[in-house]
């Protein structure tokens, strides 16, 4: 039993099915080999009485299967190796690259706060720019990490009943620096104080932050964004509406594809990763929700994110 559990863990860690693990490939090939040898022996002794020929036949078959088995298990080993490397690489990005970026962020913050009074407007602006760029790099790393995690499996979802309003407030707070910088007002309304949903709140935040961040990115300076929450059948719907550049008719479905970036979006924000909406859709759907998009080029976009209502009485 312990062995099966180990294999299950290994399969989950590397994100590949159990039957593709090298050990499993090797064992299954051995079983196949024994079966084929028995069948051949059985058939051969029935139709051919020369024991010499039977032995040679069985031996040839066994050899062929052993060779095939080795080739298969070698390639399975390579797959596991690749997955291991990928995992280590992600660990390295996660820790080793984020730490210096975090220190830079904090040092810039202290510099801005303390030296700010002695600097002229231009210099303050320059510090702000360094800060923004640092944030962008940090977010890109977070995107890559989140994607690798989301791509890997669904098992790590930690569900809890949470108040959607609180999470949305938190997400708006996380983006407050960016919205202030772009002078964008976020108008958040809910028809009731609290709507409870059953979700993995950390993953949900990734999605909500992405959509609001896009809304800010693709709005002109000084515009406003409307966010509202209301119940919709078994769901609670979160609507995020901007008056930004909008999305072309033909692009509405493919904006959710991995690495896809809208034509209009590329002009405004040339450096995006094209992962935001892909991840958002994936996490929301993992949690049993949906994401819909209405948009008019030049007029703005409206994203509706639906989350399953909590089963507890509201």
């Amino acid at each position, binding site marked *: 039993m312990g062995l099966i559990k180990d294999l299950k863990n290994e399969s989950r860690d590397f994100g590949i099915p159990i039957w593709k693990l090298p050990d499993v490939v090797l064992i299954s090939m051995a079983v196949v080999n024994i079966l084929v040898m028995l069948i051949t022996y059985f058939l051969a002794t029935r139709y051919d009485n020369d024991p010499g020929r039977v032995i040679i036949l069985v031996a040839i078959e066994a050899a062929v299967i052993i060779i095939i088995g080795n080739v298969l298990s070698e390639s399975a080993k390579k797959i596991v190796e690749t997955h291991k490397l990928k995992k280590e690489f992600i660990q390295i990005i996660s820790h080793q690259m984020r730490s210096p970026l975090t220190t830079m962020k904090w040092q810039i913050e202290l510099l801005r706060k303390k030296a700010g009074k002695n600097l002229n407007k231009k210099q303050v602006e320059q510090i702000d720019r360094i800060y923004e760029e640092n944030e962008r790099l940090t977010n890109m790393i977070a995107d890559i990490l989140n994607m690798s*995690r989301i791509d890997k499996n669904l098992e790590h979802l*930690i569900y809890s009943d949470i108040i959607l309003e609180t999470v949305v407030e938190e997400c708006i707070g996380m983006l407050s620096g960016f919205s202030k910088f772009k002078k964008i007002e976020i108008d958040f309304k809910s028809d009731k104080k609290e709507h409870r949903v059953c979700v993995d709140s*950390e993953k949900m935040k990734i999605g909500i932050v992405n959509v609001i961040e896009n809304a800010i990115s693709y709005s002109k300076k000084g515009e406003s964004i409307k966010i509202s929450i209301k119940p919709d059948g078994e769901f609670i719907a979160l609507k995020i509406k901007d008056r930004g550049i909008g999305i072309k008719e033909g692009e509405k479905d493919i904006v959710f594809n991995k690495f896809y970036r809208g034509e209009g979006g590329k002009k405004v924000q040339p450096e995006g990763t094209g992962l935001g909406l892909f991840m958002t859709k994936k996490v929301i759907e993992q949690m049993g929700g949906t994401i819909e998009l209405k948009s008019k080029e030049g007029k703005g976009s409206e994203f509706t994110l639906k989350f399953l209502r909590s089963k507890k009485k509201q």
Partner: protein
Amino acid sequence: MELKRQKKILIVEDEQNMRESLQEAFLDGGFAVLTEEDGESVIDVVKEQEPDIILLDIILPKKDGFEVLSELKSDASTRNVPVILSTNLSDPSDIQKALDLGATTYLVKSNYSLDDIVKKVSGLL
């Protein structure tokens, strides 16, 4: 009017630049600040100096944050000191592990400005 007692925070962080940034921010925020650069003597420092709250990094030399946390939580004299685990890992299983071990909360460093960290800590006291 009685003066509010100054709160004392213990910051356990191995990276010097990060530690000093945090130290500066908390000093500015009116805290008394103790620092440690590895996990080894955290428990002794906590017993001796009785901080009001601990900001504990997960990846540390000698003894990692999880070990330190379980040590703190298994000793009656240190059990009640709130611990915030700070990390840049943000792996859900690590976060779950931290909370299971009794951390009050956790924060992913790269998501927070110093201001927000000071606010978060003050909010817990």
